[in-house]
């Protein structure tokens, strides 16, 4: 009988000589820093634009009615919307990646966003949904239902396979859904009236340019609860990483967790798409980068992704507003143009598993 495992009976250690140190930064400090960055970005974004505003205007000293109008009716709702949409896209990306236990899961790649987009297009064209008092809210509902449909479909597919196969199936399914939704969207554009076509193309480019209070209020009502719901799934997502059998042994009700994440994501992403069109790469990029920095624990990763997503979309939207001012670049174009190459570079740099 050679050496034995160290004593079975737990022993006390000398205080302060713990060899196990937290490799990750202190969560509170990270989140506080990100929140500060978001606030700073909000402030800078509020002041810049085709009509420049001074800090004093923001504090309530309006030299002209125009300045007030720009601030209160255009810029503030738009900034809030950018923050909410950014937080939702990145947060749902993080949650999806946790749920599929795969760093490539993302609302756009899996076809969630295009499913929502197609539903919105159907609503606008077939039901002439843009008209009428319920136009905007009907659009929200269509987005939610579209995203939910794709979510359930993708999830059922993913459940039926295991290991590496799942990833391929999901990506192929996402590809098929994206293609199909694109084609159907084309058909919708073909049969749409001129007015509907204008609506479609205005909405479809991925832009926050028609953010008014009505839209922002809708986002506040729908997206905030979805974010809150996702945050409450953090511990469950952590456990799920152990595999379903072990996670069950550790006290996780996996089916309930999956339902929650799927519904919250569908609600949030559906709304985001209905409001701002398809904004690519945010959901993939933000959680991925943050995971490299903060580790895979969702209790930190989820809120950090939400803050990071808000930050990134505020910055991107400000650039979209100002780079070609007074014209606007669609922000979805910008995030994809910047995000794509960055992501490729990231993959090249890290040859190990992501």
């Amino acid at each position, binding site marked *: 009988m050679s050496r034995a*495992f160290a004593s*079975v009976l737990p022993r*006390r250690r000398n205080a302060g000589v713990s060899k*196990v140190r937290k490799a990750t930064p202190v969560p509170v400090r990270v989140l506080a820093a990100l929140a500060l960055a978001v606030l700073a970005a909000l402030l800078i974004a509020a002041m810049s634009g085709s009509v420049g505003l001074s800090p004093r205007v923001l504090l309530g000293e309006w030299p002209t009615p125009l300045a007030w109008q720009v601030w209160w009716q255009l810029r503030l709702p738009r900034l809030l919307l950018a923050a909410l949409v950014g937080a939702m896209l990145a947060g749902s990306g993080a949650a999806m990646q946790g749920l599929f236990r795969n760093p490539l899961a993302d609302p756009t790649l899996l076809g969630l966003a295009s499913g929502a987009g197609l539903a919105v297009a159907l609503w606008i064209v077939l039901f002439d949904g843009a008209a009428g008092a319920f136009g905007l809210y009907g659009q929200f509902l269509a987005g939610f239902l579209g995203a939910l449909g794709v979510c359930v479909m993708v999830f059922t597919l993913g459940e039926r396979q295991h290991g590496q196969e799942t990833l391929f199936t999901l990506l192929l399914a996402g590809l098929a859904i994206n293609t199909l939704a694109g084609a159907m969207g084309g058909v919708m554009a073909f049969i749409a009236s001129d007015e509907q076509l204008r609506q479609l193309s205005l909405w479809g480019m991925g832009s926050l340019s028609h953010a008014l209070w009505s839209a922002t209020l809708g986002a506040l009502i729908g997206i905030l609860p979805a974010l809150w719901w996702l945050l409450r799934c953090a511990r469950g997502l952590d456990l799920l990483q152990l595999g379903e*059998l072990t996670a*069950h*042994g550790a*006290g*996780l009700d996996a089916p309930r967790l999956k339902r929650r994440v799927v519904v919250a994501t569908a609600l949030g992403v559906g709304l985001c798409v209905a409001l701002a069109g398809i904004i690519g790469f945010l959901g993939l990029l933000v959680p991925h980068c943050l995971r490299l920095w903060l580790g895979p624990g969702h209790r930190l990763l989820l809120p950090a992704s939400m803050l990071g997503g808000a930050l990134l979309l505020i910055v991107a939207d400000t650039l979209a507003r100002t780079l070609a001012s007074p014209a606007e670049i669609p922000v979805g174009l910008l995030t994809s143009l910047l995000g794509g190459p960055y992501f490729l570079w990231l993959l090249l740099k890290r040859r190990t598993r992501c």
Partner: protein
Amino acid sequence: MLSLIDAGFTRAPSLAPFSDRLGPGELLAIVGPNGAGKSTLLSLLSGYRRPERGNVCLDDKSLSWWAPAELARRRALVAQKLTLGFDWPVHELVALGSEASPEEVETVLAMLDLEPLAERGALSLSGGEAQRVMIARALCQLGLGHAASVPVGSVLLLDEPTSALDIGQQQRLMRLLRQLAERQRLAVACVLHDLNLAARYAHRVWLLERGRRIASGLPTEVLSPSVLARVFDAELEVRTRRGDGSPLVVLAP
């Protein structure tokens, strides 16, 4: 006390219902040929699959009666393989499923000789290391890292925990499990392929064949040459180990 009351599955993978108890202080080995239903039995014992007949109870209350979080403090499971999507540091992985303090994590890691790996990423571990990390996590979940942990009759279920370990590690792990059972009043059920580990360390052995439990008892009773040769369809010889008199299964010459 984990009790099976005429519990089993009728649908595939099926398991003929039977009744038995697994008490504190006991190390039970579940053995049988491939596909005999060992993992199925383990998922029944853990509550992952609900029995289609009968019931499985912990402390005389049905497993489905327990709140998942409550149950998790009393029953932990170690699966065959560690499958991770992301690279968790070992010390964070071990704390998953419990609110264990760094000191508790450290204690549990020390129990399994894993202290040097605490900061490593779990994806870079070897098979045997990963296996021990998963066992450490389960021990942590049952609160065994706590300096003042009181035995409460917890249940630890392991699916082939020695399959990737070298012979020394196998020995140390089985000795640890037996010590945990005896000193911490744990009820340990362990699926094993190595009949000699079962014979040497288990208090009791269940032998499974094609979805039925065909024998239960002391290793000396269950591991008889005629039964083993038939069940495993192998040419075996069972000798008696000098010292403790436990059976020793060897290939027939």
